[in-house]
């Protein structure tokens, strides 16, 4: 995957040392800390935190349960709304969701309740005798879910819960989607995505077939024929391009490609290290890339963005993490030319300085160069349209490149539903994808049972 960087050296530290740089970014709460923190919750009514949670977890209730020594109850409360509550507790940008809305985030209240860490505490410490949710009697209905990311897994679990049989079709060797391949290593440690997957599958009635890719060895038409309903949780598989010459040169690649490799690496010291590197972009993926490279030992990590700090997609919290890891944030500069050495490998990048003229971004005419062993693109992910190439799939109505859905996550084709990043509904967040999967499953269930009653 990263042949593009095969000419680079490896980190100088050994694997155990490097691994110690990728432990929990936010360490879990101890029992004592959970008690102190849960006592801070005011148990709001019609709570702002719940309204801010895309997956509608009853936060005041689960925190009260933690405080009243009912961790199991707290965990079930979370999981019944969000079966991937464990990974959401770790990867959610709570600073712009529940904790932003927390009434204790008010100036006079010092600081928001640490909702994310309390959620993790409940799920880390709950012990169940078997899976906490019982499947309903079999409906005899079969549903195909394409994509084993957060949206697909959430959908599959809710469907199985309702008594339907589910087959998940997944292109990759492992299920989990971005939780397995895309999130920074220090946010989901100890193979958490796979443990969570195992837990989710305990409900039964879910089969996962790997190496199955829509538009390649799988078509929507076939799925519609073989299943009673289809859910598309395709994600955004394509990395956006810069549109510059030499974009395929060794040393220039998508950040997501590198992160995927890093997440799967057993030996971090075998990864290529770009001692001087450039990360292009301003979202959380750009931050993840830059920080991880810094933690592998890179001395000079520059994150370059064509607009200002206030326009960055990464939250203030994420930007703070970058700064803490000695990542340099350069704003108002856009890529102009990939600079190559005599072997044709990346040696740096020339940037044009930018500014706003009457609200429009323009170059100032001034340029500068940054030396780099590698350049990582994190300028956004796009929908991989090749997935929707069969006769049925091409009929799906689209919003721009993504799949159009209504509020119940129904596409324009009867019996076909979609959710997560491949749609335009809501924010591109794990927690949003989980909610889509859950709502789509409810819609599928309602629609399927309607036909059962009618028949």
């Amino acid at each position: 995957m990263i042949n593009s960087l095969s000419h680079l050296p490896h980190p100088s530290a050994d694997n155990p040392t490097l691994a110690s740089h990728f432990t929990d970014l936010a360490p879990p709460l101890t029992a004592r800390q959970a008690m102190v923190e849960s006592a801070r919750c005011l148990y709001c009514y019609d709570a702002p935190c719940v309204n801010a949670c895309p997956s509608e977890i009853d936060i005041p209730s689960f925190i009260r349960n933690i405080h009243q020594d009912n961790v199991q109850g707290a965990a079930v409360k979370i999981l019944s709304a969000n079966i991937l509550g464990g990974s959401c507790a770790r990867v959610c940008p709570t600073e712009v969701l529940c904790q932003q809305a927390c009434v204790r985030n008010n100036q006079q209240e010092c600081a928001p309740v640490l909702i994310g860490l309390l959620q993790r505490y409940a799920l880390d410490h709950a012990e169940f005798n078997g899976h906490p949710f019982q499947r309903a009697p079999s409906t005899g209905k079969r549903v195909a879910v394409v994509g084993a990311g957060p949206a697909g897994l959430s959908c599959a679990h809710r469907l199985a819960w309702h008594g339907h049989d589910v087959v998940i079709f997944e292109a990759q060797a492992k299920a989990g989607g971005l939780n397995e391949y895309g999130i920074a290593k220090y946010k989901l440690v100890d193979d958490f995505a796979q443990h969570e997957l195992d837990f989710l599958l305990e409900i039964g009635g879910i089969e996962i077939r790997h190496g199955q890719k829509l538009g390649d060895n799988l078509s929507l038409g076939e799925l519609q024929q073989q299943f009673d309903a289809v859910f598309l949780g395709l994600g955004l598989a394509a990395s956006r391009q810069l549109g510059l010459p030499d974009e395929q040169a060794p040393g220039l690649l998508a950040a997501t490609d590198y992160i995927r490799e890093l997440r799967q690496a057993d030996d971090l010291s075998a990864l290529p290290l770009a001692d001087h590197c450039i990360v292009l972009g301003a979202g959380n993926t750009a931050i993840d890339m830059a920080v991880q490279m810094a933690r592998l030992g890179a001395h000079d990590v520059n994150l370059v963005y064509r607009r200002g700090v206030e326009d960055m997609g990464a939250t203030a919290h994420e930007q703070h993490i970058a700064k803490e890891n000695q990542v340099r944030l350069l704003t108002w500069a856009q890529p102009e030319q990939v600079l190559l050495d005599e072997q044709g490998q990346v040696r740096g990048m020339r940037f044009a300085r930018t500014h706003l003229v009457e609200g429009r971004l323009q170059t100032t005419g001034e340029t500068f160069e940054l030396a780099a062993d590698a350049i990582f693109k994190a300028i956004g992910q796009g929908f991989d349209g090749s997935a929707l190439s069969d006769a049925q799939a091409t009929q799906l109505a689209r919003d721009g490149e993504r799949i159009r859905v209504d509020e119940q996550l129904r596409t324009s084709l009867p019996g076909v539903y979609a959710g997560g990043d491949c749609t335009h509904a809501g924010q591109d967040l794990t927690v949003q994808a989980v909610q889509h999967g859950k709502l789509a499953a409810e819609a599928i269930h309602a629609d399927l049972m309607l036909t059962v009653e009618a028949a």
Partner: protein
Amino acid sequence: MADLSIEFAGIKAPNPFWLASAPPTDKAYNVVRAFQAGWGGVVWKTLGEDPAAVNVSSRYSAHYGANREVMGINNIELITDRSLEINLREITQVKKDWPDRALIVSLMVPCVEESWKAILPLVEATGADGIELNFGCPHGMPERGMGAAVGQVPEYVEQVTRWCKTYCSLPVIVKLTPNITDIRQSARAAQRGGADAVSLINTINSITSVDLERMIALPIVGQASTHGGYCGSAVKPIALNMVAEIARDPATQGLPISGIGGIGSWRDAAEFMALGCGAVQVCTAAMLHGFRIVEDMKDGLSRWMDSQGYQRIEDFAGRAVGHTTDWKYLDINYQVIAKIDQAACIGCGRCHIACEDTSHQAIANQKLADGSHRYEVVDAECVGCNLCQITCPVEDCIEMVAQDTGKPFLDWLHDPRNPYREAV
């Protein structure tokens, strides 16, 4: 700075903060540390007849708040488990070494004249400033006919008080048990017996919690538990009421009161004094934090007194008594309405749901475009119950505003809606 010194029932002390008869005043070592820390006086842990009492292990349990702050402690410890001779010797020495501090000796012997006649001269010989009669201990001792078993029968209270006044020249403070229905009966009995003062409250019968694994209440002694005496901040409201009941009872008008029950701060002490106490006793707060708290209590009280222009305790002691009355004398025409300070409101919705579910549906919940809420009082529905203000986590966010109803003062005795109203 204000002068905190007092003369209470003829007993002088440099400040009104005394340690109550309890484990902190069990022996010379503790009492000396207390005096070093600045306490104005101590009531030495209750002396009894030899052989001394024997205590069990364990002895205390607690009722906790959400942050594990102790709301109240329950104890099953008995009176002193040391010999009378040792206690008397230590009392004599401590009083000699600390002549300016109040040193009161708590006593509990069987309810027979000979017992009191025998012990009183021994105590008086120590040089102590007064005695306090322990008629309140609710655990253990009543099973032997002492403590609360005496305090719950006004005739016994009167009788024993009289014996003490007969066989002893020291001021007699009668400590009252709250485990009765009308505290005034006990206070009147003490006064009839010649008491120089009353002190209250002693501890309240209690069980704080149950170990649900072992199915035994706390504190656990072997395989069982027993009820104990409850103290600490949780009992303060009960104590304040009992103090006020005695202070405003015409029958005991002017009887000095030493306030006890959940006092942990200068403000607590000032409140007891406002309701008629000339001195206060502290125990639980010291047991939780050590003797050092007296420094903050003295400082806080004297600064508050300065801010109010009070030079001595008696300048404000009892000032709230006249404003404490029976329900029937309250102004039916008085009306307050809640007012929410929108700038201070953090939008938790607690006032709304409390009022909506359990009161008068007087706080409207308006969802704004940005997903936040605005909570507004519906004046026409608000009865001024204070519940919203109580449930609000932000101090001073909800104000109860007195309304100008234009109506004159009217109490229930004269209200036309009262079928038994007094003839005008």
